């Protein structure tokens, strides 16, 4: 919920930190518990994959998301019509054989706009989450490895960012800089990195106390090498969970921006923008094909991403036996 979108990430973030630290400490002992079958040698990564496969909802979600990515990539082939083709002879027509999901106020095919809208949502979700996670990881590693005043400064900056109502600042910046997919991605990433930063720092602080780091140091590894070889590897698993949740909240943010009329520019199709047109009572009451499909599309996509996030967290968390 949003910040549109925000609550998920922030609430879960704390849980992830705890779970990940526990997994860091208990990784070696606990991971073998649920492996009773005899098979090839198991790395923690393989065990995580096996646990993820057992999480049925997450698996279904992954298939759904893969399907969605394919649709977005091959939109030109899949879409029955040009999403921007205006047809003044059929305005706001209900679903029919020609237009499976009807037409909008400019006579454009709703289904095609939904299919093309997937591009915007997925691009924003993936790009914003990756940039936010990247920036957060970098600063979190630096804070955790150097400690001292650098750490203090970075963590205070994180506090400052987390205090801001990001939706409003993002609205403001997008209004000032001009709405485009790039601006939206950059602005969202700029305000969403602190969650990732906190978790990576916590993980780094926990990991650096392990004996293997001491061993690496004794054998002459530099700070940089330790960071790259040992800390980063340990940070990756909780980071995937964070990145998943970040992409869910980025998609929700983009949808909220477009819904408020500040998202991608018209006529480019986006799910939130399609709902923006549904704010009138007449559309709500008499033309459900204009507002139900884009709303369901956003909800289903975010739901799938969140289930995958849940599945990943369970897979990486040795405390859970489910």
């Amino acid at each position: 919920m949003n910040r549109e979108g925000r609550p998920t990430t922030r609430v879960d973030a704390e849980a992830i930190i705890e779970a990940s630290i526990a997994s860091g400490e208990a990784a070696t002992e606990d991971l073998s518990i649920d492996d009773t079958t005899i098979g090839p040698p198991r790395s923690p990564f393989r065990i995580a994959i096996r646990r993820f496969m057992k999480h049925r909802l997450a698996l279904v979600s992954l298939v759904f998301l893969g399907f969605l990515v394919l649709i977005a990539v091959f939109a030109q082939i899949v879409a029955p019509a040009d999403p921007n083709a205006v047809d003044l002879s059929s305005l706001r027509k209900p679903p029919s054989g020609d237009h499976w999901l009807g037409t909008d106020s400019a006579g454009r095919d709703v289904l095609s706009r939904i299919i093309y809208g997937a591009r915007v949502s997925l691009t924003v979700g993936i790009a914003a989450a990756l940039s936010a996670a990247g920036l957060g990881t970098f600063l979190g590693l630096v804070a955790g490895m150097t400690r001292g005043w650098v750490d203090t400064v970075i963590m205070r900056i994180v506090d400052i960012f987390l205090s801001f109502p990001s939706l409003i600042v993002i609205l403001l910046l997008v209004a000032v800089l001009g709405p485009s997919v790039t601006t939206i991605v950059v602005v969202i990433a700029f305000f969403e990195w602190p969650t990732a930063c906190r978790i990576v720092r916590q993980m780094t602080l926990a990991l650096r106390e392990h004996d293997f780091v001491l061993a690496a140091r004794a054998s002459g590894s530099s700070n940089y090498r330790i960071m790259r070889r040992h800390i980063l590897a340990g940070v990756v698993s909780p980071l995937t969970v964070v990145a998943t949740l970040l992409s869910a909240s980025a998609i929700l943010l983009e949808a909220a921006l477009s819904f408020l009329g500040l998202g991608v520019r018209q006529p480019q199709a986006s799910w939130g923008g399609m709902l923006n047109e549904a704010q009138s009572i007449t559309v709500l009451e008499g033309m459900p094909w204009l507002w139900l499909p884009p709303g369901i599309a956003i909800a289903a996509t975010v739901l799938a991403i969140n289930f995958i996030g849940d599945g990943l967290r369970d897979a990486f968390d040795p405390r859970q036996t489910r």
Partner: protein
Amino acid sequence: MLAYLIRRLLIAIPVLLGILAMTFVLVHMLPGDPVTALLTPEEMQGPELLEKRRAELGLDRPMPVQYVAWLGELLDGNLGQSFHRKVPVTEMIGPRVMPTVILSGSGVLIALLFGVPIGIAAALRQNTKFDYASGFGSMLSISIPTFFQGLIAIYVFAIWLRWLPSGGMRTLGIPPNGLDLLKHLILPAGVLSAVLMGPYVRYTRQSLLDVLRLDHVTTARAKGVPYMGVILKHAFRNSLIPLTTVLAVQIPALLAGTVIIETVFTWPGMGRLVIEGINTRDYPVILAVVMITAVLVLFFNFLADVTAAILDPRIRL
């Protein structure tokens, strides 16, 4: 305890100054010259006059000096002038505070009243149908966009069933009264609480599960404390600590929720003011709201830390 309080305060001060500095930077990033906004058309004739007004307002001084002067103005309660309506920002925000407080207050209250018990029940019945159902429900609450939940609520309760009004804060033409306000409040507050409930359920459940695993709970059970007594006295009290933090951390999210919900339900609060400000490019108003929220978040975070320290003596160390 005192030492802990002082330490927390010392951490909060640079964060507060940082929040203010960032707001200040945002103010200066914005397009539009505040001087031209203050001038009458006749005064705008010559550039000399513009420069003179500029000097009068102190806008020719270096940025750090301006920042300090700006801080001084803030302390006097001056949040700037609205570009659009040419009145002090405080005058525009003032009447919007109460509606937002009513909406978000009742939203949080409903969400807590339902979310916490559901979370507790889910934790106590871990891996049962009830647990899965509440988990799925909270996942829906997190995943369905706020505005879509709002549109569905309007469709079902205002258009289809015709039980409740679809927007606004009171019926036009009749004098404002409590019952009328309540009728208008139910839908927006209900949607806001639906949005907030998911995280509350998840957090209550997780933190109670964490506490139930601890030794002192086992000990209490072993020495014969009744089951509900263990839950309420030993487990629930400890699981409250993370919950207070969640409440504080969620304030920006709460505000984001009210921005959307106030737009969908045409509720005349601060969230709508922000959207109106964005549409009319009235940046000082938006920045004032942003700053007030950020300072509030900082304050509530501090409060949550203090509460946590009272509930858990270990934190004070």
